């Protein structure tokens, strides 16, 4: 992972786009313009919605941003859903889609020339990295059903390699991330597993009246343990979950982010769990991890309560030289920002930094920490969307589709504003229309030096938002950040 940078990618968009009132628009400090159609993106996620309200159909899906064809710009990859694999029947009508960047913001659908990247499983997340060390990007796909490890040849073409790779997982997996856990120069793989759901005999949750059937709470299901796959150096993997010290904890995992949280030069791992304690795994330097959750205080919020952890970002929000953590959560919980105090001690500063109120009502999914206004500090973007499509029946102040948020970090060494003071800002088209947001990525798609946003929706269209912010100039590098919930990308420079 030396010399590597983390680019994060993932999105979840809303299940079903809804017409909604336009938000009031104060003078724009930030400007993100919806250029989806103009740039040639036409991906729409198929959630495979059913009357039985299977929980997996609320969760997808992720996306990735990487230079798949080695031409120097960022291409796009979207994970697809489709018909749910009930009774073992997989839908082969929907495939993941790969869009090649032709430069300057023109994308063409290159799925049919992408080989095995045109995957047809019911997808959740994606991780990108050169796991066989041949200089070309590979990808791991987490799915409801059999996961896939695909090897790339640098021309946006992939071959399926699960049998040779040793990686096999048929559970409901979600977040996945490549990182060099044992500092041996190759990329290992961590995959979060979510819930043990019964698609054959789904429980009826919610009221029995017509139209009131709802999705069951994660507490209704048993969690599944995450898995850690150690790279043997050639792109083959062994299950080293226990050996590496990742206890067999069924944490209902969603997001996972590697970051050097203790500043010792190796990558630690933070895992967001849905409605159970999040986990901070401290890298002991030899490929083994110890549980630093209790000491760090990052398992629960300041109230000592577990939250529904989903998306993750990491970055030095207060410019004190270490990496802080940001976690998106469910409604009636705020998203949570943990400030790194050093010595592996963190403090929940969500309220103190003004991040509580703007995030209390939405259901947060994908998030990105990036310098949206190029003022030298990290801002936060969050895509939101409820999982329950009829939530308004149960709480008349909540909606399925929700506004995304851009939270400006007004703290800066250049201004006399305390670092880490956030406020919600108008961001042009980003967040203007409520969506069922899921994955959020940031990357310079048009090579103009600032970071654009990509947002997926559950059952809806993916969007590209071009960064037209007035101060958009030289973007601060994304260091140690990995966005959200389902998938991430690590790319070697």
């Amino acid at each position: 992972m030396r010399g590597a940078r983390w680019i994060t990618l993932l999105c979840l968009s809303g299940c079903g786009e809804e017409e909604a009132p336009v938000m009031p628009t104060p003078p724009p400090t930030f400007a993100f313009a919806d250029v989806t159609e103009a740039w040639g993106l036409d991906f729409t996620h198929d959630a495979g919605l059913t009357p039985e309200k299977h929980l997996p159909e609320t969760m997808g899906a992720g996306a990735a941003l990487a230079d798949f064809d080695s031409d120097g710009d960022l291409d796009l990859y979207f994970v697809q859903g489709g018909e749910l694999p009930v009774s073992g029947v997989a839908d082969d009508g929907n495939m993941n889609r790969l869009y090649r960047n032709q430069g300057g913001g023109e994308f063409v659908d290159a799925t049919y020339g992408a080989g095995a990247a045109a995957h047809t499983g019911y997808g959740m997340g994606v991780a990108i990295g050169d796991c066989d060390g041949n200089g070309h990007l590979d990808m791991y796909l987490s799915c409801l059903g059999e996961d896939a490890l695909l090897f790339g040849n640098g021309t946006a073409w992939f071959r399926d390699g699960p049998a040779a790779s040793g990686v096999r997982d048929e559970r409901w997996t979600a977040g996945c991330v490549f990182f060099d856990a044992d500092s041996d120069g190759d990329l290992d793989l961590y995959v979060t597993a979510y819930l043990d759901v019964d698609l054959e005999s789904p429980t009826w949750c919610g009221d029995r009246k017509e139209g009131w059937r709802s999705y069951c709470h994660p507490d209704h299901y048993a969690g599944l343990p995450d898995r850690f796959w150690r790279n043997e150096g050639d792109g083959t993997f062994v299950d080293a979950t226990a050996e590496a010290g990742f206890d067999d904890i069924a944490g209902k995992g969603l997001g996972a982010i590697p970051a050097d949280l203790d500043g010792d030069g190796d990558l630690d791992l933070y895992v967001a769990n849905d409605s159970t304690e999040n986990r901070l795994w401290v890298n002991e330097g030899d490929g083994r991890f110890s549980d630093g959750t209790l000491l760090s205080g990052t398992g629960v919020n300041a109230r000592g309560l577990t939250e529904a952890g989903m998306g993750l970002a990491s970055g030095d929000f207060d410019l004190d030289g270490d990496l802080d953590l940001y976690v998106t959560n469910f409604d009636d919980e705020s998203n949570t920002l943990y400030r790194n105090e050093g010595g592996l001690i963190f403090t929940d500063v969500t309220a103190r930094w003004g991040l509580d109120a703007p995030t209390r009502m939405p259901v947060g999914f994908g998030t990105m920490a990036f310098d949206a206004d190029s003022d030298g500090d990290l801002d936060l973007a969050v895509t939101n969307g409820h999982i329950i499509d009829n939530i308004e029946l149960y709480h008349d102040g909540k909606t399925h589709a929700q506004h995304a948020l851009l939270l400006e970090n007004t703290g800066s060494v250049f201004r006399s504003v305390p670092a880490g003071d956030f406020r919600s800002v108008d961001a042009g088209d980003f967040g203007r229309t409520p969506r069922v947001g899921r994955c959020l990525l940031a990357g310079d798609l048009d090579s103009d030096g600032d970071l654009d946003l990509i947002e997926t929706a559950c059952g809806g269209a993916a969007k590209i938002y071009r960064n037209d912010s007035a101060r958009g100039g030289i973007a601060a590098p994304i260091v140690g950040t990995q966005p959200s919930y389902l998938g991430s990308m690590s790319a070697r420079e």
Partner: protein
Amino acid sequence: MRALLLIPLLSLVLPQGPRELWREGERARAIQALNAKLAEDERPELRRRLIDWCFTVHKYSAALEAAEGLGDEGDPHRGRALYFLGRYEEALALLDEGDGEAVLMRVEALRALGRDWGEWIEPAAELLGEGDRRVALLRARALLEGGDHAAAVEAFEGALKRAPLEAEALFGLGRALVLSGERTRGLEVLERHRALTPLLDALDFAERGLDLAPLHGPNHAALGDAWRELVPFDGGSYARAEAAYQAALSRMKGKARVPVHLRRARLIADHGDGLMAAAFSLDAALKEGEDPQLLVRAADYFSEAGDAGLALLRLERALALRPGDRAIRERIERVRRGR
């Protein structure tokens, strides 16, 4: 006589009143009916009831709308509704400063907005009393956030004495200990908090289920289970578990009651008067009718308590109900061997 016969017949065809609907769990219809009644007969007491019902079913926008009809008197209700809708700035202008619960909401709203809330601790203490666990928590939280870790330790310990199941107090105590240099003790407390947290989550889940369907017996039983698991952390949970099981039994009939009797017996065995008492509680349940599950479990408790004779009697009754049951036969053999 004819008139008497007409009364039940009429009750089948006449629309039910809001109260009846509410009592039967038809809450959405009850609110609809009460709204209709208010349209014909606007009375403050009816409107207050409507507001109350709206809050109960999380219809905060509806509560907000309903409170408009009360004029200025509706402001505190509107403040609460705005608070639950996450509209904290607006809520702050309307929340009642003379009501303790509303002051707690004010603190939470200020906190969510990233503003100072410390000045509201004393008003909260005056209105709710120093004995209130939430006041104790506010004081402890302020000390922790202010960096006075040693004082925070003391304050959280005090809060825990009042409320042993308060997650924030336990977590805050652990954090304060770690931050004040008592790392080992702090980690011990945090381990205890880690053990408690999933149990509190389960309790929350059970309470939400009950909130959605308050008349459903199994939801009460699930609440009993959640409280039962919390007894090691707080003895007061025993009575709550017992009350929940009784509430479940009062709403269930026939064989559906059997699992609840079994779970209640486990409460008694694990945390109450012990194995014999648990067995006798199942004996009492058997007065409702013979049941092999109740008999076998009672036998297990008697056996574990050392009374093989009573155990065998129940196992033989169970075998009479299920003559081919190998598990019962094996139990009988085991008890006989152990005599």
